[in-house]
C-alpha cells in the first residue's frame, strides 16, 4: 500500500464568534476574517507539515482545491504543489484535485501540471474534480453544464498531454485553434489521473471505464459508505465493463490522529476534530451545495427529500464509531487501518494528519508517530491482505 499525507490547509485560526453573525464558513464569510499575517504563518506551517510527512516515510503528499472559504485555503493547489516540488525528493506530489472545468482555460492548469511533472522528474499525480457545488457560485460557472464541461476539459487535457501539436480542439465548451503544449509532461503518457469524489455514481462509472481505469478516491465519510462506494467501483468494473478492478484503482482519504494511548489521543483530538465537523463543514444550505444540474435529477431529488440533514453537534466518539475518523494509539490506528484494508482493499490511503484547529505541536507528534509506527506496516500490505468483495452484495445496493 502507498500511504499519503493529505492536507486541506484550513484557516484554523478562525475567530469562532463568526457564528454569531454568519451561518457558514463557505462562500459568503467575509474575508475580513482572514488575517494575512496568520495566513503567512499557516501556509508555511502546513507546507512544513507535508514536508515532514515525506521525511518520516510517507510515500506521497497531497493538496486540493477549494474557493472562498475557511475550510481549505488552496484556491490554487498548483501553487502549493510547486512549493513542495523543490523541497522533496522522492515522494509523490498529488493534487487531489484540481477543478479543470471551473476554468475557462483548462489548458493553463494542464501546462502547470506538466511543469511540476518536469521539475519533479515525474512525481506528480493529477486529480480531476468538478469542485463542490458552492464553487459554481464563487467561480460563476454554470452547474447545469458541470458534468459535460468536466468530461470535455479532461479530453482536452489528455489530448494536449499526449498528442503531437499543434492541433485544433473542437469542443462544445472549449475551442482552441492551436493546442501544442510546451512542456510535455515528464511521465509517459501523462501523470496518473485520480478521481476524488464523495460517492457520485457518475464519477464512479466514468472513472472505472476501461478507457480510463482511473484511481477512484473516496473522500472521508462513514466507513459503511466508503465501503459501499469502493465496492460500487469494483462492481461497475465487473458488471458494466467486464473486467476486474485492481486495488491499485482504489483509494480512500481519512482523518487520522495518533497519540501515545487511546485515551490521550481521544482527549487531545476532541476539540480539533469536532471543529472540522461542527465548524468547517456544517450549515451549508442545500441551494449552495447542490446548485441545479450539478448532480443528476434523481440525486437532487433524494437530497431535497432529506432536507435538514445539516451536520453539527458531532462528537469524537460517534465519528470514531462510524469510522469517519481513525483515532488512537499507534497499535489501535495500525490495527484499524489494516482491518479497513482487509475489508475495502485500497492500494492508496490518504491520511489527513491535520484538520480544523489541530495545532502544530500535535500535528507534528501525529505525523512522527504515524511515520514510525503505522506507515511501515501499511506499506507492507498488498492484495493478499484484502478479503475481496461479494459482487452480488455490491450490486444489490
Amino acid at each position, binding site marked *: 500500500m502507498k500511504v499519503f499525507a493529505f492536507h486541506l490547509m484550513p484557516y484554523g485560526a478562525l475567530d469562532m464568534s463568526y457564528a454569531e453573525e454568519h451561518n457558514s464558513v463557505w462562500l459568503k464569510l467575509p474575508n475580513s476574517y482572514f488575517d494575512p499575517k496568520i495566513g503567512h504563518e499557516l501556509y508555511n506551517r502546513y507546507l512544513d507539515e507535508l514536508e515532514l510527512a515525506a521525511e518520516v516515510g510517507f510515500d506521497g503528499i497531497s493538496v486540493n482545491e477549494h474557493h472562498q472559504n475557511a475550510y481549505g485555503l488552496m484556491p490554487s493547489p498548483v501553487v502549493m504543489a510547486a512549493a513542495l516540488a523543490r523541497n522533496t525528493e522522492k515522494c509523490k506530489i498529488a493534487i487531489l484535485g484540481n477543478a479543470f472545468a471551473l476554468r475557462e482555460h483548462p489548458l493553463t492548469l494542464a501546462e502547470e501540471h506538466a511543469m511540476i511533472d518536469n521539475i519533479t522528474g515525474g512525481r506528480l499525480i493529477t486529480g480531476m474534480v468538478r469542485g463542490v457545488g458552492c464553487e459554481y457560485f464563487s467561480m460563476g460557472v454554470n452547474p447545469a453544464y458541470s458534468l459535460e464541461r468536466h468530461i470535455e476539459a479532461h479530453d482536452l487535457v489528455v489530448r494536449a498531454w499526449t498528442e503531437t501539436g499543434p492541433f485544433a480542439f473542437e469542443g462544445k465548451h472549449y475551442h482552441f485553434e492551436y493546442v501544442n503544449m510546451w512542456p510535455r509532461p515528464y511521465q509517459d503518457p501523462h501523470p496518473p489521473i485520480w478521481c476524488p469524489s464523495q460517492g457520485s455514481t457518475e464519477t464512479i462509472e466514468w472513472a472505472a471505464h476501461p478507457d480510463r481505469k482511473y484511481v477512484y478516491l473516496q473522500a472521508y465519510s462513514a466507513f459503511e459508505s466508503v465501503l459501499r462506494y469502493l465496492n460500487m467501483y469494483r462492481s461497475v468494473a465487473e458488471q458494466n465493463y467486464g473486467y476486474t478492478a485492481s486495488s491499485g484503482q482504489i483509494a480512500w482519504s481519512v482523518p487520522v490522529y495518533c497519540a501515545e494511548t487511546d485515551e490521550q489521543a481521544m482527549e487531545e483530538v476532541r476539540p480539533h476534530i469536532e471543529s472540522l465537523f461542527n465548524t468547517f463543514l456544517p450549515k451549508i444550505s442545500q441551494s449552495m451545495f447542490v446548485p*441545479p*444540474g450539478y448532480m443528476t*435529477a434523481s440525486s437532487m*431529488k433524494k437530497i431535497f427529500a432529506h432536507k435538514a440533514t445539516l451536520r453539527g453537534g458531532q462528537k469524537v466518539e460517534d465519528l470514531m464509531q462510524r469510522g469517519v475518523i481513525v483515532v488512537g494509539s499507534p497499535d489501535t490506528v495500525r490495527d484499524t487501518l489494516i482491518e479497513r484494508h482487509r475489508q475495502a482493499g485500497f492500494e492508496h490511503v490518504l491520511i489527513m494528519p491535520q484538520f480544523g484547529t489541530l495545532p502544530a505541536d500535535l500535528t507534528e507528534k501525529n505525523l512522527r508517530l504515524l511515520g514510525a509506527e503505522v506507515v511501515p506496516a501499511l506499506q507492507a500490505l498488498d492484495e493478499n491482505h484484502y478479503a475481496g468483495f461479494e459482487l452480488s452484495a455490491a450490486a444489490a445496493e
Partner: protein
Amino acid sequence: MADCTESKIDIRGTGMYLRRGGSGEPMLFLHGASGVAGWIPTFQALSETHDLMVPDHPTYGLSDEPEWLDGMEDLAMFYLDFLDQMNLEGVHLVGNSLGGWLAMEIAVRNCTRLKSLTLVGAAGIRIAGKPIADIFMMDPDDLVREIFVDQSYADNILNMELTEEQLDIQIRNRVATARLGWQPRLFNPNLRKWLHRITVPTHVIWGDTDKIVDPAYAAEFGKIIAGSEVTMIEKAGHLPHIEQSEPFVEAVSGFLQSKAA
C-alpha cells in the same frame, strides 16, 4: 374550471406541452422560472377575449428536453419556429420574469408575427448595482415567500403535498433555469443594445412590491423601449398575474384596447 385543451405538439422534432383556450386574437404567454401552475383564473379571463396559448418551454414542465437547447438564444429561435409552424399572425406576446426576457429575445430578432409585447416582472437586463435576486442561492422555501406580498399564497404553495411527478418537474424547472440564466445571472449583456428593434406597442407591468426583479427595472424598460407604457400593480410581488388577477387582466386588456382603438 379549465376551459383549455392540453396537448403535446411537435415543433421541428421537439415535443412541446401546450395549453390553449378561448378565441380571438392570438396571445402567447411565456412562463417564468417556476413554470406554469395550471390554467389559472387569469388565463381563463384572458381567454375570454383571446386565443390564449400557454406552453411549457422546452426542458420545463411536461415538454421535451431537446439536445439543442443551450441558452436563451436557442429558446428564442425555437419560438420563432413555433410562430412560423403554427402560422400565427398578430400575436400578443406576454412574458413573466424569465419569460419576459425570452419575449424580448424573440421580439428583437423578429417582430413580424407580433402585434404587442407585455413584460411582467421581466428579467433580461441588468441595472448596475441592482441585481435580480439570486433565486439559485435562496432556500427554495424562502424564495416562495419572497415572490408574494400576500403570504397566504406562499402558505398554500408550501403546504401543498407534491406528487412524484410534480417534484420531478420542480427539479427539471430549476435545472432548466440554470441552463438559461446562471451566468451571467438571468440577463443577457447584449440585449439592451438591441431593444430598439422592438417595434410593436409594449406594455411593462410590474408588482409594486416585486422583491425578485426590483420595480426600478419597470422604469428602466419604460425608458429604453420606445413608446412603451408602464403599469404598476398595487399589493403585488413578482407574479402580479397570480396575486392580483383582476387588476392584471384589466391592465392587459385596457392597454390592448387603447392600442386597437
